[in-house]
């Protein structure tokens, strides 16, 4: 039977209209990350329960579960990427009206992208959203500049490399995070096939033989450990960025006591980070849960 003709381009357009409101916790990058990452974990558990209830063919189910694991891995990494991007945007929003140097030149926003953000989004979002945040060196470079003291290059490294970058206690995250970004790349761009060049990079990063061509099939414990690593990294990032932003705002306020109202700023920063902070002697008040 011939297929009924359908206006497929119109159907594609419709996809963009099938939307939901953002969850409440989206106002705080860390809570937003937690919610999304937890949703992905409970999605797996939900399907475990559902599969157990059915008499579905186990081999078929196992094949689908492998694919679901890969999809969840990618979504976990992308939740983390969005968290990094959102927390950078929050920092820029709090600093934009307080600094005169060229720190924001680290971003390469084109006019058309900026115009698209002009009506509703913040300065931070307009600068951060057009770039990807999936490279530790690039992320380091951006945060170092965003959170630098006025007219300096900055010394804040979000994911410090072994060697000269500090703090030393955080250096252990650089390689595993780079490996995670590479695994994501393999799944997203090669549908999970480890190509020869992927294998070469993974071999260098993990210091072990990685076969190619092979299809990556992450198991449940892989996802559990990956999520736990990203969760703990997000928590540390959240804490370090908050502390550095508060330190920088304090420094700016000391240079010009009329730069902003400390209480208003402390309240706003507290709200974005979900924790009370003190700026210029004023302690931020959190909204009641």
């Amino acid at each position, binding site marked *: 039977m011939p297929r009924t003709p359908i206006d497929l381009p119109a159907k594609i357009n419709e996809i963009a209209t099938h939307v939901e409101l953002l*969850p*409440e*916790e989206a106002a*705080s990058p860390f*809570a*937003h990350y*937690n*919610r999304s*990452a*937890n*949703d992905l*974990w*409970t999605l797996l*558990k*939900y399907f*475990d*329960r559902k599969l*157990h*209830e*059915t008499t579905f063919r186990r081999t078929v189910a196992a094949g689908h579960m492998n694919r679901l694991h890969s999809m969840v891995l990618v979504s976990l990494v992308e939740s983390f990427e969005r968290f990094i991007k959102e927390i950078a945007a929050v920092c820029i929003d709090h600093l934009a009206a307080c600094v005169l140097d060229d720190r924001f030149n680290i971003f390469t926003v084109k006019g058309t992208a900026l115009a698209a953000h002009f009506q509703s989004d913040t300065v931070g979002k307009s600068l951060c959203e057009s770039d990807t945040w999936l490279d530790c060196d690039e992320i380091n470079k951006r945060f170092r500049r965003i959170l630098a003291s006025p007219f300096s290059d900055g010394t804040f490294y979000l994911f410090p490399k072994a060697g000269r970058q500090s703090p030393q206690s955080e250096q252990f995250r650089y390689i595993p995070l780079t490996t995670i970004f590479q695994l994501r790349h393999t799944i997203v761009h090669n549908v999970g096939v480890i190509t020869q060049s992927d294998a070469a990079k993974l071999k260098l990063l993990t210091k072990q033989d990685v076969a190619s061509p092979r299809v990556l099939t992450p198991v*449940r*414990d892989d996802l*559990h*450990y990956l*999520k*736990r690593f990203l*969760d*703990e990294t997000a*928590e540390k990032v959240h804490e370090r960025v908050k502390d550095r932003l508060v330190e920088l705002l304090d420094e700016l306020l000391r240079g010009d006591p009329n730069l902003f109202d400390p209480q208003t700023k402390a309240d706003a920063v507290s709200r974005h980070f*979900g924790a009370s902070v003190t700026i210029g002697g004023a302690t931020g008040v959190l909204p009641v*849960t």
Partner: protein
Amino acid sequence: MPAVSTVHVITWGTAGGAPEIAELAGTPDQHPDNLVREILGSEFTKLPYPAALQKADLVICRAGGDVVVAERDDQGEILSVCDARTDEIVHDLLGNKELFLPYFSISPGDLATWIEQQDEDCWWSVDGDPLLMGRLHMPCPGDELSAELRSIDKVLFLLDKELSVSTAGQWKSAEALDDLATTDEYGFRLFQFCWRDRPENDWILFEDEETSDSSSGP
């Protein structure tokens, strides 16, 4: 597949309030879009069945926006439950009625106490609650969950697994939770809650045994 002749809607009015049971007009087959055929064609889990509804072949319950459809077999046992939260057909059938399932009341502090009394190697996950899922990394050990629960000044509603018609928001203590837990197909404990100020948003707390071993480290 048993023949379905009647469809009953169970209505709890407000959370924990007295239930009302009403028979829908017409036979299920007359409802739009073959609702019943849709439901009976799927695979479902078992659900305790309220004694007051033994005569119904099909029961539709709604807790806020969460609609479930339960089917009964020849012996009166529940065969299946369909989570019809997003099912427009079921929504059309129920109209704008505000229906709630029967809940007990419990303080988050009492739930925290119960969690602390469990094996310390036991980990937990929450599915569906924006509040806890925005604050914790799931799965999490009991002490992290209980500390977070103690910081929340709200009342929890716990779904009565028996769906008893006499359940109307009675307060329960930590000691009662052993008996109020249900178990999933793997034998892990599971509770269905909602916050009193958000009855439309049901969520579950479950024992995340699968990761307990690996979470404890080598």
